């Protein structure tokens, strides 16, 4: 996997390359690293472990260890339809966003990377400008627009704007990828009778697969964690995605801290799992997007 990922990540994952050895008090490096890591991970572990306690345990000692470990909170949440509905909604929205952003993104990137026409620079600048303005500035009018389309309380009303907002990152990452495909390949394909579109389907898409996967993952994680758009668009609890589900659950059961902790940790597990599987791609995609 490391060979594939080094494609986009550039220096970060270039294996086998090390800094010159410097003698620097090694134990200190480890000590600081351990402190750093516990600050980063501690709160996450608190949420997960807290879900194994009971409310009376938490009230008696908010920062204590489970004693005994209770699995009741987790099984309760897993048995509730509420959790699975939110999980399903998040999955549908995430997949829809990912497919849409990747398909539209690669088509547009191909044009920007490999066609020559006057408006090309403007087209790239249009998408690049989108990077600068996250959803916050557009959300109020966007809500009205979606309401006029009749897509409020509809997962489609979430997917379409999310595709649009995922396009800048997708295009920025994919354009250099597609540009790097040697033109000799294209010439060879055209000698063999392939049109430019045929070249696109048969050569470009397979060759840019690593970039496609990276952008797909970024779009999926962005959608999975999205909060502001669902907050405006969805008011029907049956359509809530996981972030809204967590918020709803935590206000509904505000006295039942243990159960809220269990719900919260279950909702972050898919993202954590996903991240640990694709860590290099996510990290590489982000640094790639920023370094352009």
């Amino acid at each position: 996997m490391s060979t594939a990922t080094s494609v986009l990540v550039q220096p970060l994952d270039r294996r086998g390359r090390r800094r010159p050895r410097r003698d620097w008090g090694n134990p200190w490096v480890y000590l600081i690293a351990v402190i750093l890591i516990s600050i980063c991970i501690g709160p996450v572990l608190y949420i997960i472990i807290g879900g194994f306690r009971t409310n009376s345990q938490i009230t008696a000692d908010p920062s204590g260890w489970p004693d005994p470990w209770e699995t009741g909170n987790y099984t309760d949440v897993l048995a509730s339809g509420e959790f699975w509905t939110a999980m399903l909604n998040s999955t549908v929205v995430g997949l829809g966003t990912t497919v849409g952003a990747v398909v539209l993104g690669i088509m547009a990137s191909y044009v920007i990377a490999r066609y020559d026409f006057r408006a090309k620079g403007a087209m790239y600048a249009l998408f690049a400008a989108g990077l600068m303005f996250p959803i916050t500035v557009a959300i109020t009018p966007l809500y009205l627009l979606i309401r006029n389309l009749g897509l409020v309380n509809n997962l489609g009303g979430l997917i379409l704007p999310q595709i649009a907002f995922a396009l800048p990152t997708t295009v920025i990452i994919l354009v250099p990828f597609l540009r790097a495909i040697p033109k000799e390949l294209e010439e060879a394909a055209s000698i063999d009778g392939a049109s430019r579109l045929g070249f696109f389907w048969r050569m470009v898409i397979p060759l840019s697969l690593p970039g496609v996967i990276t952008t797909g993952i970024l779009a999926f994680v962005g959608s999975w964690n999205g909060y502001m758009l669902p907050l405006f668009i969805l008011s029907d609890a049956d359509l809530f995605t996981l972030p809204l589900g967590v918020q709803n659950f935590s206000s509904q059961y505000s006295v039942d801290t243990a159960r809220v902790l269990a719900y919260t940790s279950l909702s972050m597990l898919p993202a954590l799992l996903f991240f640990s599987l694709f860590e290099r791609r996510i990290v590489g995609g982000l640094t790639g997007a920023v370094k352009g």
Partner: protein
Amino acid sequence: MTGTQATPLAARPVGSAPSGAGARASAPGRRPRRADWRMRGEIALLAGPAIVVFVFFVILPVVMAAVYGFFRWKGFGFPDDFVGFGNYELILQDPTFRDALWHNAIVVVFSLLLQGPLAILFALLMNQKMRGRSLIRVLIFVPYVISEVVVGTGWALMLQDTGAINSLLAKIGLEAWQNSWIADPSVAMGTLMFILTWKYIGFAVILMLAGMQSIPEELYEAAAIDGAGFWKIQWSITLPLLGPTIRIWAFLSIIGALQLFDLVNIIWGQYVSATAGTSTMATYMYLNGHLAGNYGFGNAVAVVIFLISLVVALVYQRFVLRRDTDGALTGDSGRSRR
């Protein structure tokens, strides 16, 4: 994994993209017109859908906001109560908006001052030879990957008056440090800055680390031969060469801080944020525009946020990013401009 299909062909990094498009350009230009129209058709077919979706859901709303912002309008029917700049006057005269703007400014400044130096130090640390480096890199990135709602809910529970943080402080004999972390206006902004730093520093560290690893090794070797110490080397080699990375990161951080909404809304809720002193322009917009149903006013707030972000972005590009304008944010490698 499917990703292993990556061939060396596609494995070129960004910078090495051949200007193949340019070379090919002359050929279709000389062809008869039919081919020209065919190419235009292909462009429209391939790029059309993305542009339509993007313009419709990203650009159009901003334009709509500019129009709606001039009306007093509850969001139903056609806006007809034209009030000119009335909404804008209301916004700029509203002390709660000015508070929110001030809070955004604090977040911008302290995000840079806290996360920047810390991220560079952590990246330096992780750039040292040590075992388990890749594991550390994964772990430091975890807070960035989990959603704002999970982070917000978790921290809100821990920071309650009867939460884990106060209890932990009591256990280690620091009762005096116990605080009402969320509600007390004198510490709430500090709490917010701490959570923001915790959540977003992983991103900064990863960027800085990537920047550091692209610095040529020879420079370090040369400096070491010249007898420079570790900190001296970092100060005079790493830091200057990290400049472009730092400037891009700072840009993203500033824009993000101006748009801050999620964590504040989740932890402080719609009403507490104003009294605790953590409200932002975006929470102000949500409360006074969306929840209050005043869409003319809410859209005017959106325009104000947009303009502030735009001015900041342009000023930053003009004066700070100028040196490395070939970045992602300035167009097609500058080719379209020059």
